[in-house]
Each structure stands twice: as C-alpha cells, then as structure tokens.
C-alpha cells in the first residue's frame, strides 16, 4: 500500500479523535475528570507524535512524488475522493503539528483550570484537522480540514481566552471565513472545468489565463488572510493577545503556515501564469508587511502583541520567498515557515512562563527578570536570537536563503527584506531588555521563581530544534530540495510555454 505498510497518514490524522472519545467517556467528579483528560490528551498526542516519526524515517527524499498515498473513492459521481499523501513540502509540517500539540498540552497543564475536558478535546480535534489539512490530496477534503481548523481554534480563544476574547474570536473567525468562501467558489469553478478535485490530477490540467487570474484572486483572498499578509493582518494580534498561551503557540506555529502552504500547494502549481503575473503585487505587500509590522512591533507595550506583529513580519519574508520562484527563495520560505513555527511558538511559551506567574503581559511590569530567573533568561535569549535570525540558530538559514533568492529577482526587494534584519533586532532587543534586564523595582518580580522541570521539559525539544536547524539545517532542507526543484522546473516550463503561445 505504501512505504509504511499501513495507512499511516490516516492513523496519524485520526488517532487524536480516539483520545477525544476516551476523554468523553470519563465520568466522575471534576478533579478526576480534569486529571484524566490531561493525561489522556498528553498520551494520545505523544503516541501520535511517535507514530508520525515513522514519516521522518521512511520518507524517500530522492523523489518528488507523493508518498504514503491512500486513496478511497468517496463521492465517485462527483470525482471527489478521499486521498491522503505527503511530499517534501508537507511532510515536515505534519511533524511540526504533531510535535507542537503535546507541548501545548503540557503548557496548559496548570494554567487551564476550568472546563479542562472540553479544552483537551478541542486541542485534540485541532490536531486532527491540522494534520489532515497537510495530508489531504483532494481539494474538497483539503477545504473541509482547512475550514474545520477554525472551529476548535474559535472555541479555544472564545472560551479560554483573555478579557476581550469574544471580540477577538469573532474577528478571527469572520476574517478567515470570508476569504475561504471565495476559495470555495474557486474550487467549484475548478471542478466544473476539470471534473475532479484530486490535486495530483488537477496539476496536469491547463487552466486558461483569464480564469487563472480570477482563481488566483479567490485563492489569494483566502490564503492571504490566513498567512496573514498586510493589510489583512489585524486579526492576528488580537487573536494572539486574547488566546491562552497554548492557543497562541498553535496559532503561530501551525495555523499561520496554512496560508503559505496553500500558496505553495495550489496557487503556484495550478496557476503558474497568474502567479507570475501577480508576483510584483505580492512582493510589494510582503515588503510592506516586513517594514510596516516591524515598526508597529516597535511601538508595542504588550509582549504577546509584539511577538504577534513580528510573526506578520516573518510571514512577509515567507510570502516573498515563495513568489521568487527560485530554488533558494522557496526553500528559504519553507525553512522560515518551519523555524518560525518552532521559534515563535517558543517565544509565546516564554511569555506564558512569566504570564503564569504575574498574570500580566505588559512589558513595563517586568524588568530584571534575569536576576531571579537565570535559566529562563538564557532560554528566552536563545529564542530572541533565533527570532532575529542570528546565524547558527533556526531563524538564519530561511531568511538568508530568501534574501539570496530575492536578490536574483530584484535587489531592491532584497534590500527591503534585509531592513527587517535591523528592525527585527530593534524590537526583539527592546522586548528582551524590558523583560529580562534592568534593575528590579517591583516586589512581585523579585519574588519570581525560576522555571520548574515541567517547563524545562516543554522547552527542551524546542531548544534542540532551534540549534539543530541552525547548525545542521541540511537534515531539514534535504526533505524538500527535490520537490522544490521539480516545482521550480515545472513553473519555468509553464511560463515558458505560455510565453511561446503569446509569441505565436
């Protein structure tokens, strides 16, 4: 059937739902239910993660084909099937999702105290939807997962969030839904043309240029909101600020990648000419995102908001890299997506550590934390440096490759992206200085305790990854190099064919 010998992708996708069933069956008083729910969720997500490691081991890096493919006909009359499979682009995101989920559950261990059962259920469903989305090879299936992700996230923000959680969760939901409706229309239009929604089949199908333009805009509406690109980014800071720590981690770590993944999976392979046509437009939006949101980040007084804006800036680098259409740019974008998932996730956890202690996210309320929490200061420093892309940490290879790729397209774009290096250093160091450095002036800060074993355990895998990705990025880059090479080649062929037609 596939390299693993059993339907591994479906198993990884739906295993968390088994955990959900178990949690739902637990009865008893509240404390027992809560503790059971925690442990069940943790074990389920850990088993899922271990299972997904098979993908890491068995993935064949020498081919650009889809692997571990499972195919079941679902609605044969409409040409819609249940197709799962991964290639070099998606496989690591499956792993990222399965890795972050147990960490999030651990991070919510003590900070979530009410409705624990429902919370854990929401997280496990979220995991299923995320993994499913990265594995789906049928457009309809993809759409279902893509939209279904919203529901648990909406609940997580709306129920377990901060004081303005209802506003934030509605904003989040409406923004992302609005774009998706247009994407649904585009999918239906595509289905009318091609008679199928299977992605491998669709990529063989030639779409006329006029239609490509409209479909690109429809996809763009959906993906740009998810990324989020400037100027549809304002839902993100609100969502992050109100979401519980673990919600922010997943939001920054995985959900933001869905938009960029959509561009890579659909816009560029299916609509090559329209993508090339709109590329300058994307460059402008990306550069504006980098410069604008970095500046806005500089003015923030709320730790989470600052990191949220920095995420938008990093995503600007990603979209820029994707639309350079060259090997360095796209691999850089993919790598930035991965590293951002690890690093910004970790940064939100860092905020969570002190938030759990003082229950405020205001930078000015801290100061001098390094003195009382040296271990925390070191961890926070590492991820600060990774966020400003210091070579040797996870942030660097991606940003470096994107700038290299962008220079080949247009040096001014590269310059714009590179200004992010300076501004990024400005706001991250301001944050770090405000929190960790300075004299301790407040008694509650002086009484802070350094991180406990559970917290170190959460950070440990992220620390390892942040350094590993910086020092030996090859073990990650090698996953996508063949796929990206093929993608670049096909894109060039498509553009070449189109311009030949135009020449005739």
């Amino acid at each position, binding site marked *: 059937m596939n390299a693993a010998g059993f339907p591994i992708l479906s198993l990884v996708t739906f295993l968390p739902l088994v955990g959900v069933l178990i949690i739902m069956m637990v009865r008893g008083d509240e404390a027992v239910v809560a503790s059971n729910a925690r442990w069940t969720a943790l074990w389920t997500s850990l088993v899922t993660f271990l299972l997904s490691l098979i993908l890491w081991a068995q993935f064949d890096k020498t081919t650009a084909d889809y692997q571990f493919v499972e195919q079941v006909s679902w609605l044969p009359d409409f040409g819609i099937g249940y197709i799962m499979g991964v290639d070099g682009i998606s496989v690591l995101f499956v792993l990222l999702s399965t890795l972050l989920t147990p960490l999030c559950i651990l991070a919510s261990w003590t900070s979530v105290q009410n409705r624990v059962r429902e919370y854990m259920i929401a997280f496990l469903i979220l995991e299923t939807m995320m993994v499913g989305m990265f594995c789906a090879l049928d457009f309809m299936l993809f759409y279902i997962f893509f939209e279904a992700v919203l529901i648990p996230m909406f609940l997580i923000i709306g129920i377990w969030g901060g004081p303005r959680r209802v506003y934030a969760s509605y904003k989040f939901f409406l923004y992302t839904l609005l774009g998706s409706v247009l994407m649904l229309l585009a999918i239906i239009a595509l289905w009318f043309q091609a008679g199928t929604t299977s992605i491998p089949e669709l990529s063989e199908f030639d779409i006329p240029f006029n239609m490509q333009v409209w479909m690109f805009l429809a996809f763009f509406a959906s993906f740009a909101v998810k990324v989020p690109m400037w*100027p549809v980014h304002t839902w993100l800071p609100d969502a992050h600020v109100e979401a519980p720590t673990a919600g922010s981690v997943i939001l920054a770590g995985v959900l933001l990648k869905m938009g960029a993944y959509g561009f890579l999976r659909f816009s560029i392979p299916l609509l090559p000419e329209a993508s090339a046509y709109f590329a300058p437009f994307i460059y402008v939006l990306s550069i504006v995102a980098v410069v604008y949101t970095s500046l806005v980040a500089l003015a923030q007084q709320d730790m989470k908001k600052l990191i949220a804006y920095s995420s938008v800036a990093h995503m600007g680098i990603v979209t820029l890299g994707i639309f350079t259409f060259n090997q360095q740019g796209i691999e850089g974008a993919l790598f930035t997506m991965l590293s951002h998932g690890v690093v910004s996730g970790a940064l939100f956890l860092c905020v969570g550590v002190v938030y759990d202690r003082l229950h405020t996210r205001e930078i000015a309320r801290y100061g001098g934390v390094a003195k009382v929490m040296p271990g925390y200061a070191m961890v926070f420093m590492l991820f600060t440096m990774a966020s400003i892309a210091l070579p040797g940490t996870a942030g660097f290879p991606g940003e470096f490759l994107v700038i290299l790729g962008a220079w080949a397209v247009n040096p001014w774009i590269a310059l714009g992206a590179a200004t992010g290096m300076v501004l990024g250093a400005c706001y991250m160091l301001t944050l770090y200085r405000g929190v960790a450095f300075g004299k301790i002036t407040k008694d509650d800060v002086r009484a802070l305790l350094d991180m406990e074993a559970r917290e170190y355990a959460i950070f440990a895998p992220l620390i390892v990854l942040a350094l590993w990705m910086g020092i030996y990025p090859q073990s990650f880059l*090698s996953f996508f190099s063949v796929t990206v090479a093929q993608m670049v080649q096909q894109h060039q062929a498509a553009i070449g064919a189109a311009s030949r037609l135009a020449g005739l």
Partner: protein
Amino acid sequence: MFVGAVFFPLLGACISGFLNRWIGVKAAMWSTVICMVLAAICGSLSFWQVAMGGQPATVTLFTWMDVGELEFAWSLRYDTLSAIMVGMVTFISTLIHLYSIGYMSHDATPPRFFAYLSLFTFMMLMLVTADNLVQLFFGWEGVGLASYLLIGYWYDRESANAAAMKAFIVNRVGDVFFMLGMALTFLTFGSLDFDTIFAAASSKVDVTFMGIPSLELIGLLFFGGACGKSAQLGLHTWLPDAMEGPTPVSALIHAATMVTAGVFLMCRMSPIMEYAPFALSVVTVVGASTALFAATIGCVQNDIKRVIAYSTCSQLGYMFFAAGVGLYQAAMFHLFTHAFFKALLFLGAGSVIHAMSDEQDIRKMGGIWKKIPVTYVVMWIGSLALAGIPIFAGFYSKDAILEGAFGAHSAVGMYAFICGILAAFLTAFYSWRLLILTFHGAPRADKHTMDHVHESPAVMLIPLILLACGAVLTGMIFAPYFIGDEYVRFWNGAIFNLPSKHMMEAMHHVPEWVPTLVLTVAVSGIVLAIILYGFFPKVPGRIAAAVPGLYRFLLNKWYFDELYNAIFVQPAKRLARQLWQVGDTRIIDGMPNGAASLAAGTARGVVRLQTGRVANYAFAMIIGLVVFVTLFLMGR
C-alpha cells in the same frame, strides 16, 4: 590541533556557562582559562606550521547548507591570514582571561562573564577560519552577540543596556550590507566558497549588475559591513558607548580582536577588492577620514576608556586606508601589533580604574605614578608603541602604512597620507595628555580614594607584562615576515596583490623625508602634550575657553549621536506609533469594525419594527395588501 584551537574556547564557555552551579565559581573560571591555554598552544602551533612553515590546510567538518547550486560547509581554513589571527586571538584572549580572574574577583556572577568571554573567542575564531562567506558571517554575528552580552553584562545599569542595544543594532545596519554583498556574490559567482570566488574573480571583471561593475558593488557592500563592525565613520557611534562593559571586554573585543574583523574581511577579500578600484578608493577615503576624525575627538575626552576607544577607532582607520591603497600586508601587520599594545593600554587603564576605586574620569586622577609603578611603566610602553616611536611595535607598522599611502602616488593616497600624518600628531598628543593627567601632577581624587590606591595583584600584572613585551618586540621580530624581505614566502598567496600595482615595492621607495616627518610629528605631539599638561596645566583650559564652539563640537563627538537620534531614532518611533494607532487601529481595523457596527445598527433598527402589538402588524398587512393590489392592477 586545528580543531582544538577553535573549539577549546567553546568547551570552556559551555563548562562555565552550564555547569557553574555544580562545580563552583572558582572551578568554572579556571576551567575557561585552562581551555584558553590549550587553545593558545594549538593556535601558536598552527601559526608556526601554517605561516612560518608554509603548510596551509583546510579541515572540513560537515555540510551546512546545500540548496540548488548553493553549497557550503562548516570548515576551518588555515592559511597565513587566518593563522595570524588564530595565533593572535588565542594568545591575547588567554591573557585577558587570566587578567579577568583578578579584575572580576569582586563581581557577583563571574562564571557568566567567563562563559561570554570564551564564547566570544570561539566566535572570533570561527570568523577568521571561515572557508566561505556564510561561516564568516556566522562568526561575524556571533561576535556581535557576545559583544552585546558583554557590554550589557551589568544589566542592572540602564546605560549599559542602552549601549549594548546600540552596539547590536548599529552592527546590524552594517550586516544588512554584508548580507546583500553575499547575495550579489552568489549571483555573480554562483558560489560563496572562497576558493571558487577567488579563482573566478579575474574573469568577472566585466560583469555588470544594474549598470555597475559587480565586483565594485560587492566590494562596496562588504565595506559597508566592515564599517559597522570596525566602527568606521558613520557607523562608529557604538564603539565609545561600548566602554560600558567591563574593562577586559573593552581590551579583548573593542580593541584587539572583534573591531578588527572588518579589516580582516577586507584583507580576506583582497582577490576581489583588487579588481574594484573605486571601492578601494572609498575604503581609503573613509579610513583616512576616520583616522583623523576619531583622533580629534580623542583629544578632549575625559573618560580614560573613551580616550582609548577613540584611539582604537582612529587606528582602525589607518588599517582601512592601508588596505585601500592595496597594502593589505601592512594593514594586517598594524592589526597584529595594535592588538598587543591596545590590549595593553586597555588592561593598564583597567588596572588604574581598579586602583582608583572604579573612577574613570582622568580629571579626578593624577599623582599616582609612584603608587602603581608597574602599571605606569606598561602604560608608557603602550603609549610609545601607539605613537609609533622607533623600536616599539607600532613604529614598524604605522611607518609602513604612511609610507605606503605616500608611495601610492594617487589623490586618495595623498589624502590618506595627510590625514594619517595629522592623526599621528594628535595620537601622540592625546596619549601623553592621558598619561600626564592620569599619573602626574597634584592628586585630584579625594583622600579616601588616594589612600586606597594600590598595585593590582599578580594575576593582573603578569598579562600586562607579557603584553608589554609584545608591544615592544612584535614589530621588530615580525616586520621582515609581514612586510619585509620574507613577505612572499610568509603570506604564501593568502593575500592577493594585483601584479601591476607593485605596492609592496613602492612602500620602500619613498623619499627620505617621509619617515623623518612621521617621526617628527609623533615626537612633537608628545612634547606639546608634556608642555601643556605637565608644565602649564592651566593653559589647556584657557585654549578650550578661547574656542568654545570647537571645544563643544569635539566634546560632543561631532554631534553624531544627536544627529542620528533626530533623523533615525525619533522619526522611527513616531512612525511606529502612527502606523499602529492610525494605520492599524483606525484605518485597517476601522473598515471591518465599521461594517460590523453598520450591520448591528441596521439590525437594531429592524428590531424596532417588531413591536409585538397585533394592531401594528394588522396595519402593516393591510398597507402591504393595498400596495400589492395596486401594483397588480397597474401592471395589467
């Protein structure tokens, strides 16, 4: 041996940084020193084998990235250029680790300090042994990080935090150019490995990029990066502020090693720079201007460390214009000798500060030379070397640079020569101003401080004495190799000189009056300072009062900080607030929030119709019926 020289410091940093809770403070400190000693042994052996023995080597560790045509590895490249740096860095760093044991003995968290110091050394070694531009950039940013951590080491001081951030951010501005330089190099050469680039350089002379010769643009971009790290005019503002860090840091990072990375980069890239004559002219002009500019400021500063910091800035200018006229060998030689005497001066200053109970203002010193004789003597030696007095190290290298600038016979070379001569005069002047104000005259400190003035412990004096030996001997011993008869064999191709330029010969064929002039200005600077400050201590104050505008201009460092604050920092902050509060909150969020409140308002209006009274509904129904029937009849 090659690997050990680089990685022992990292080992030391890890031991001290992570294990200090278990092994104790003392053990943590000494473990870094031991690791550094091992590294220094390896480093010296490498220098012996590679530079003196002429056996370059490259150790490849493992692939770093392989993306499309782009491929490079982590590796250690040992040729003469890097062997010099490795030998020098490990040696000086070891001495400074040793010195720090005494200097930091009263500190609260010495293991953290030693971990940073060793980490810095490791990063610096990675920088100099890089085999490709990206690894060089790794070290480049790594030393920036270590410098940031060390400047901000006393993080409960606001000024230290501000200085650390400033250093990092200003350096980052330079790094943008470095990054873009790498991008253009990759586009031009399809590789970032030194061997590939250097081999292809001559064939890419005609390649243009946006109408500009690529090699020129590459040269300029890398020089932009070098300006940031080496504090050249325009991006120099961070260096004086960096003196907020502990003094051993100033000695190691902000004098001897890190700030010379820019010069090292220029020399490393000599095969490209040589084909970029315009870029070299820019290097010369900026370097010469910095040499003079920093020297003028050095004359009026009152903080002992800041005077030496500006002197560093000025000496870096010398190195740059030496590279700019094509004398990379002389630039490296000055870098090498400077490392010894500048580290010596800084550590000497540290010893003075230590003796004066952490006083740094030279106006509050004086009259202490008898109480700290060893420090006094080594400061003299350092100053003599800095001023370029014969037999001391600085003489050989500075002389070579100035003669070379004259021998270049070009307009920029002449400009550099004039700036260099003026700066040499000022250098001698401010060095002796410093010496006399610090050590001679009537004591100006309070009695309590004066009673506590004491010579530093042996662990601090031994490094001082060793460095003093270096400041005397390195010039004499190494001159034949770096710039003398042996130079072709010594450099062994590590530096490329365009065959048509003959700079190495031109340097030795200048008129007799040039070296005489160089020596004369240095001596007259010393004499003037001794007269003014030693015999007529009231006169300098009167001179300053006579030209208050000029004095304030120099005292405020040509108003660079104020200028940058006004044109970059404040507007950026204002813009940031505007973008956030107007751009994001009012405009971008205004639209959906407006749409939402419009919908809600409409809904509220509609709600009002649902009154619940049957009469109202009946009325509405009848009206509706009338309208409907009317329409129906009219339509027929």
